[in-house]
């Protein structure tokens, strides 16, 4: 990840601040930075969303294609994740420099979405064993300012909410072979149910306390982080420890409790915002990167 150099004095300053529940930018330990979410930014995709969290900028595009279902689960569709750490974020990501981080991020996303309750994969099936919808979730990292997982998971949830999958009609021709027809009407589509899609909360341990939504500077002062993906009901789908330091079990327990609380509280305002944006319909002024 793009790193920032911090001196010993700065580390001490951040540490003491966090101990007193006051971070460098004035937030408390459980506050998120200002988050901006906009959906339907790229028109070539079936669903897209752009999330800005502080300086972190993430763009997610979802394309739905018809493919063959996996042999183990013939009546389900599936999701494919790809994270592109572009050179826009930092020159270190030029060429193949961003591949390592991209693979780590996409592997974590696979784990987070691997449980069967997050997305109703059965609704993505067209013909069991023959055809199914494959949702290609492409994440584009434009700017890195810490807390990539949270921003990416919120963007994925928003993009899935925005995804419109065309309705499919199966017709039989004379020889008994089946033909798949996509509906021509752009408004005749199926939406994905994102109620149970989890959001990732990253907690960084700084000193004896932990913070939510760490900036790059705070990340440089922390020893280790814990990643928790939480659904709107408070169910945990994935827990992962990242970073080089070690955590003792009580810390992990405390961090998990905080993560569940913060994660659960993230879903309601997010869904409200997405529904409000959707209800504006065609009257909504698309801003994207302009202005």
């Amino acid at each position: 990840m793009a790193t920032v150099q911090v001196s010993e004095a700065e580390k001490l300053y951040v540490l003491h601040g966090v101990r007193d529940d006051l971070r460098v930018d004035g937030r408390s330990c459980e506050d998120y930075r200002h988050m901006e979410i906009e959906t339907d930014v790229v028109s070539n995709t079936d669903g897209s969303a752009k999330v800005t969290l502080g300086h972190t900028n993430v763009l997610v595009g979802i394309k739905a294609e018809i493919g063959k279902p996996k042999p183990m689960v013939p009546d389900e569709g599936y999701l494919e994740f790809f994270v592109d750490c572009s050179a826009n974020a930092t020159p270190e990501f030029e060429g193949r420099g961003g591949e390592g981080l991209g693979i780590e991020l996409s592997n974590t996303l696979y784990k987070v979405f691997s449980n069967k309750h997050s997305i109703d994969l059965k609704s993505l099936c067209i013909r069991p064993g023959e055809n199914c919808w494959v949702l290609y979730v492409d994440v584009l990292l434009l700017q890195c300012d810490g807390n990539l997982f949270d921003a990416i998971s919120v963007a994925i949830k928003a993009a899935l909410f925005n995804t419109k999958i065309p309705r499919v009609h199966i017709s039989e021709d004379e020889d008994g072979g089946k033909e798949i027809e996509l509906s021509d009407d752009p408004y005749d589509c199926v939406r994905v149910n994102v109620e149970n899609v989890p959001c990732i909360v990253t907690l960084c341990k700084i000193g004896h306390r932990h913070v939510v939504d760490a900036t790059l500077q705070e990340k440089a002062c922390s020893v280790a982080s814990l990643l928790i993906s939480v659904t709107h009901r408070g169910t945990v789908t994935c827990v992962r420890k990242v970073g080089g330091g070690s955590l003792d079990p009580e810390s992990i327990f405390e961090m998990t409790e905080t993560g569940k609380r913060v994660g659960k509280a993230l879903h309601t305002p997010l869904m409200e915002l997405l529904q409000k944006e959707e209800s504006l319909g065609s009257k909504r002024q698309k801003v994207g990167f302009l202005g």
Partner: protein
Amino acid sequence: MAGIELLSDQGYRLDGRKATELRKVQAQMGVFGQADGSAYLEQGNTKVLAVVYGPHEVRGARSKIQHDRAVINCQYSMATFSTAERKRRPHGDRKSSEMSLHLKQTFEAAVLTQLYPRSQIDIYVKILQSDGGNYSACVNAATLAVIDAGIPMRDYVCACTAGFVDDTPLADLCHAEESGGGTSLAVALLPRGGQIALLQMDARLHQDHLDTLMEAAMTACKGVSKVLDEVVRQHLQETSVLTGE
């Protein structure tokens, strides 16, 4: 050319434009705070993000260092969701490498590299949505990003494509017109002096038509330069208001 009619009898193209009309160009400078310079440009349905880092010390191979000028390093990449069919690799394929080299060539002609010996300027372009004229939109966006970074240039670099159908030159081709199989000429121009930084043509063209096609492309470039100039002045006005000058 059988199939889709690129120019109707009344003189309208597929998207309703006239033969010499450009697509709507909208741009914004200073989109990202962390980069030295950045810009976002929309040319019709083609959306491009350009980011500039530099001038800074040469990273990686010491052999790249030039003792009397700056090295310009470009990378062209497309988002996987930018094209109608999903692209598997964002960059690293032959087309992207070729485009990166073209961008490097274009900007070496325009940027005053002699002012920054032994250093490197990185220009990264990302296509968010592709609908024809990718190279031109990249050059235009990168020009704005370089200006946003405060790196001195000889002149704006404006690029545009032009095609030729039924003895009529078409300016600013969209994807359907480019892939229709007809001629497509891409020109990168420094408008004030009329200097050409890059010229590339695909498919066949009779030599008698070359002059008309070049003229059409250069007029289109000058049109784009007016828009870019407007964007830069507006951005300057906005930032000077914020800094209280």
